[in-house]
């Protein structure tokens, strides 16, 4: 005698159960992808009194006061000009006392010497500066360096920096265009 077939399970409420699970996950999870500006902090200074001797012409001084005013090299400028100013400063200018010194550096990946600017960007902010403004400045600086990397990469390899796949090429571009943003030790620069 054939076995009696088991009665079919009613799957009508399956959708409800799945909905319940779905809503649970919708509520307890977040979708935001964490994005941000990556930076590397410098190691702590061991001897704070010791002045590092940097030639003044090699430094682009950026100051941010508590009223969110931006001052670059002694002049108050709008943030929209900061990127071009930075790029102009970091570009290679031979024998021009208004711009940083130029040296040559040997790049292993290319096997030849390339001219390199000795320029450093120095960023200093007040304790009262708003974080928003600080990020805008950091963003403009990052944009300047990214554009310079892109230009160099197109000049050398004919590809945008983000499109480079060869690790050596990426390394070479990073060596030719180093991101040199130094943040001064905190102190109050006033402006209340």
């Amino acid at each position, binding site marked *: 005698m054939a076995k009696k077939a088991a009665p079919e399970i009613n799957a009508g409420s*399956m*959708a409800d159960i799945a909905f319940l699970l779905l809503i649970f996950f919708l509520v307890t999870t977040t979708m935001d992808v*964490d994005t941000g*500006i990556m930076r*590397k*902090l410098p190691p702590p200074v061991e001897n704070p009194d010791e002045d590092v001797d940097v030639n003044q012409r090699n430094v682009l001084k950026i100051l941010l006061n508590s009223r969110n005013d931006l001052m670059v090299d002694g002049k108050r400028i709008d943030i929209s000009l900061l990127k071009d100013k930075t790029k102009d400063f970091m570009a290679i200018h031979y024998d021009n006392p208004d711009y940083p010194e130029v040296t040559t550096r040997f790049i292993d990946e290319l096997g030849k010497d390339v001219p390199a600017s000795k320029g450093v960007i120095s960023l200093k902010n007040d304790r009262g500066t708003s974080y*928003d403004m*600080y990020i805008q400045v950091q963003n403009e600086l990052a944009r300047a360096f990214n554009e310079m990397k892109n230009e160099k990469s197109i000049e050398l390899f004919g590809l945008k920096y983000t499109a480079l796949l060869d690790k050596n090429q990426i390394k070479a571009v990073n060596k030719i265009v180093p991101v040199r943003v130094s943040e001064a030790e905190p102190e109050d620069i006033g402006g209340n």
Partner: protein
Amino acid sequence: MSRFKSKKGKGSPAINTSSLPDIIFMLLFFFMVSTTMREVTVRVQQKMPEATEIQKLERKSLVSFIYIGEPKNTKMFGTNARIQLNDVFANVDDISEFIAQERQARDEADRKLLTTSLKVDGMTKMGVVTDVKQELRKVGAFKINYSTRRKVEK
């Protein structure tokens, strides 16, 4: 009355809903894969500044978060910017211990790759942020990430 009757009798055939669970399950799996569990309850305002030159945070398991901003419950905690570590408000001095704990929780090989993500509200003053950064420098957590939203280009 016959008019009504005839209408009722015909009706449109019932829609077959047997594949509905499958569709819902598909949605469910999509959300399970593309989202992450919320781990802490953020108790401070979090309206991040916008930026264009942003990078995605890779390997979320190697990221520890520090939340800074004005407390949401201003009646209880005031309007001064506060630092939140895990689920509680903290002081600048607690950061070294927090980083040590975060390091302890990771594999030995991964400890160097640990990134600290600063989730700071845009209205915060830099004073607190600078203090936190100094503290991070002291304990050797040099890799940081200023959490920002993507700016929509016009």
